[in-house]
């Protein structure tokens, strides 16, 4: 009886056996990873494919590549990256950064990307979400939202949190869902880089409001932060960059702790 009660009060009730996902995020420019990657056993820490393969072997459930290439060759370098990843990696991955039109998305889909992530292009032209969902299906369209508190409100920001918009975060996320977003990647710019934990209050509010998967981002500093975000908000996935790149958190250890906390995670083939 107590087990039944426990099961009914669990925040993970009603998920079948669906796992919580752990997602390393890689920043790339001109086909190379940027920002600190400090793996001891990598031959070439700048090679996004080798890094991605390494993460897939460790048990990452999914990968996000954020392309920050700032040249007119951008689409070509992104397509090359996506093809190289799709050839080698046997888990799903998302690519984001500078996707402005259907043709960008089409090229990335055909190169093997599972999802694309759109941020500022969707804020500037919300109808782009409808077009992408119609052309490729909602499962292909991740809307990335950078949020920062302005006064007492969560406001959508652009350019890595530097430029505030007119949009309130929850309103924008609801609009994105209604237009055809298949998933929300929510980054708290107030928490990002602090290593003080995820913005669980906002994440819970968003997760309780929408009916599509939510990925938490910004603030991961310890294993406990991942336990907290899943227990307190019930989001579907948690994303981090530096704690994984610098080896501060190893994915097998993280998953073991999550499992000990009765959080459903994927078991790897031995």
């Amino acid at each position, binding site marked *: 009886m107590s087990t039944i009660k426990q099961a009914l009060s669990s925040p993970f*009730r*009603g*998920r*079948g*056996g*669906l*796992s919580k*996902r752990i997602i390393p995020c890689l920043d790339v420019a001109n086909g190379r990873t940027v920002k600190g990657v400090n793996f001891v056993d990598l031959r070439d820490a700048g090679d996004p494919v080798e890094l991605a393969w390494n993460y*897939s072997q460790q048990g990452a*459930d999914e990968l996000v590549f954020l392309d920050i290439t700032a040249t007119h060759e951008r689409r070509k370098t992104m397509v090359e990256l996506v*093809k190289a990843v*799709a*050839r*080698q990696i*046997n*888990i*799903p991955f998302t690519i984001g950064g500078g996707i402005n039109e259907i043709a960008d998305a*089409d090229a990335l*889909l*055909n*190169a*093997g990307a*599972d999802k694309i992530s759109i941020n500022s292009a969707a804020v500037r032209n919300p109808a782009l979400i409808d077009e992408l969902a119609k052309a*490729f*299906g*909602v*499962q292909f369209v991740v809307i990335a939202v950078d949020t920062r508190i302005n006064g007492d409100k969560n406001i959508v920001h652009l350019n890595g949190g530097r430029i505030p918009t007119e949009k309130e975060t929850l309103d924008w996320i609801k609009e994105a869902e209604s237009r055809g977003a*298949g*998933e929300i990647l929510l980054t708290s710019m107030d928490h990002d880089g602090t290593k003080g934990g995820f913005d669980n209050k906002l994440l819970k509010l968003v997760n309780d409001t929408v*009916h*599509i*998967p939510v990925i938490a981002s910004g603030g991961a500093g310890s294993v406990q932060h991942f336990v907290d975000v899943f227990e307190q908000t019930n989001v*579907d*996935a948690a994303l981090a960059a530096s704690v994984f790149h610098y080896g501060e958190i190893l994915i097998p250890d993280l998953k073991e702790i999550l499992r000990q906390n009765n959080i459903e995670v*994927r*078991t*790897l*083939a031995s």
Partner: protein
Amino acid sequence: MNEEEQNIQDEQSSPLQTPPSGGGGLGIIRYGAGNIFSLTAALERLGIAYGMVYTEADFEQFDRFIIPGVGHAGAAMDKLQNTGLVPKIKSLTKPVLGICVGMQLLTSYSEEGDSNLLNLFPVRTLRFKDSADYKVPHTGWNKVFPEKENILFKNIPSGSHFYFVHSYFIEYDQTYTLSSTDYNNKFSASIWRDNFYGVQFHPEKSGKYGETLLTNFSNI
């Protein structure tokens, strides 16, 4: 983009494609639904010879087939009808594996687009019920439990995780369900009848166990 352009684009973006080497290979049935780059990449990694099936004559070159597919089941069925390959597919006696929407096409009917499908399996494809606890699409890694002995799940422990992305599912059926998964309701993660197989998850994106399943299919 029309279908022809889609096909051409697929060709251009698939430098991995190798011609079948005199039989023994796996034919991917092409009908303009979905991208196959990740699937062919997985076959390359696994060393499974493959080629493309566009016409009825192409079927003779291969000894097993995959029906890929993502997107809208009704639209996919329309595209498949347009190829004229439906009678040939239904008459196949060599192993056939439908993946995701390619699997749903094997069933009798889908609520998506209120569509009649191939009816190789007398079961229906239904939409997940809207619910606060179960988000739709069902996205991510979920546990798959084989319900019958079959080579497709050889060396894959019961309860292994596979990667799913779908809003519609094939109803559970004691006769045809090969493996089941639970998400709001129990549904068919895979189906099996004679030489016909289908998997709802994406083996090409499901880590090592997904690759094992593809290898197993190549050995049926």
